[in-house]
């Protein structure tokens, strides 16, 4: 038999959070909770496993294809395991004017992988403007935000990612 999707504690967390979420919408609009529901699943599991998608569809009274249609439209949802650390480097104009192309190159060198590739540890990718235009350049590590980046600062951040 396959491993269960959740541990009992995870199941409880999922059930409680989904139940709370559904109070935010009219009773005939449960599927409106799709984005928050996917986020709940992804926060628990680190990605969106197929078994979890089935569960989300059930609770939101919608279909599995609807879950995938939404999940694949938004870049922050991972329908594949993303690696332990997702690193999003902004290379948009405001950041590029403050060294973002060099930052990306520096990251590629440090991690030994090119942008857009994933290993078990890192998923390094270029991302779009992260609203740090006045505090550029910037990146996010698993959604934690770092700005005014320098080589020293990047080194210190990466050292902590074990």
């Amino acid at each position, binding site marked *: 038999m396959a491993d269960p999707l959740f541990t009992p504690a995870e199941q409880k967390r999922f059930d409680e959070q989904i139940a709370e979420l559904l109070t*935010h919408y*009219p009773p005939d*609009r449960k*599927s*409106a*909770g*799709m*984005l*928050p529901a*996917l*986020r709940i699943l992804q926060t628990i599991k680190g990605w969106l496993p197929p078994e979890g998608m089935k569960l989300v569809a059930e609770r*939101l009274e*919608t279909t599995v294809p609807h879950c995938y*249609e*939404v999940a694949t*439209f*938004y*870049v*922050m*949802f991972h329908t594949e395991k993303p690696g332990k650390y997702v690193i*999003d480097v902004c*290379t*948009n*104009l*405001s950041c*590029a*004017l*403050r*060294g*973002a*192309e*060099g*930052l990306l*190159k*520096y990251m590629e060198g440090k991690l030994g992988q090119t942008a857009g590739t994933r290993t078990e540890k890192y998923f390094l990718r270029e*991302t*779009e*403007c*992260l*609203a*740090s*235009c*006045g*505090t*550029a*350049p910037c990146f*996010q590590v698993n*959604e*934690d*935000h770092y700005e005014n980046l*320098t*080589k020293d600062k990047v080194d210190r951040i990466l050292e902590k990612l074990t």
Partner: protein
Amino acid sequence: MSVLTEKVMTRDWDKPGQNTLAGYKQRGGYGQLKRVLDTMQPAQVTDEVKKSNLRGRGGAGFPTGLKWSFVPSLEKNTKPRYLAINADESEPGTAKDRFILEYDPHLLLEGIAIACYALGAHACYIYARGEFKYPSSVLDKAIAEAYADGIFGKKLMGKDFELNVYQVRGAGAYICGEETALLESLEGKKGWPRLKPPFPAVVGLFGCPTVVNNVETIAALPRIFEKGADWFAKLGAAKSGGTRLVTLSGSVLRPGTYEVAMDTSLRELIFDKAYGQGLPEGRSVKAVIPGGSSAPVLTADEIDVKLEFDAFKPLQSMAGSGGVIVMDDQTCVVRSLWRVARFYAEESCGQCTPCREGQPWMTRILRKIEEGRGELSDLDTLMNVAQAIAPWPPIGLGNTICALGDAGALPVQSFVQKFRSEFEEHITRKGCPYGEKPWGAFGEFQ
């Protein structure tokens, strides 16, 4: 010289505990909501907002009170009505709403309550950008505090008016900042913009009348009711009330987010010691994007324009979302435009052919020119593709369902027209004149 003498929106940003309910209340917070609920009828609230000349800070600059007045009366339409807050700040160059969430979330929440009372809306959804993990966590705490204190819930500050406020985080799609895509996303779908009409004020969230307003717009409401609509209107310039938050980025000495007067000029913002403090010694301004990367670019000769919404019209550009990006004389405009075009190509939702196919096409041509593989005919192709997405000069309506098409086409059209010789130089010398250093004074990663 117009430097802001009195901070309005940022007044309390640096005060201790301002992002908590206790800190906010200590400085009179929720006092205006209380007064509005006790002494004003909803219609009077809308009238005050109209009088204040408050205009949408999300990009379009549409008069807020007028937008509210498009919601049909309860006699004509008995469906529930909703307020949706656009906190999906993602126009490149723009970083202001996140600071309201981080530093003064209750200012937004008080504004939401005032707006919902005026609109007769009993639920508000705040659609926050997915990447805003920290700002969203601050806002979540603030919402929970407001419920616990009896401000939100069954009785709005004790008045017989139910108000529920929910935050929903997006998940990384620029298009969801477009108001109808935002509504689709709030309904749990992918962010495909809707055809208008019907406008959201009539058919919005769940098919009900809905007003979509930007964070900065709604956060201005407590100030308007504190000091009066006339004061707010006078504080501004022409038909734009209040002050503005702008984000200054690029080749300036002191980039950052600043509150400015409506009649502050771009030149003052870039050079004044209170703001950008100019460029490094020996550098000069080559180009400025004045209102987020979709706003048509301006040359160094055009920066005496004031930051007020209507002032940009003669320049065929826009004040937009207040994202001012400065490029110095050693910045490659082709590479800059390529970065901008790449963004719109990446973020096109794929619904309309001109945008879905055109934005990547323009991006490929720009890359080709930047890498020295371009031909002069490419410039014509570039302009033709852009023209097929949205006509130049801009008339506000392109050939696509939403304005993302225009947002990608207008930068291309304006850059190529205003800096054509630099594009041609790339083509004739078969490469970028700036070689390995295309990003100006601060382009090296240190």
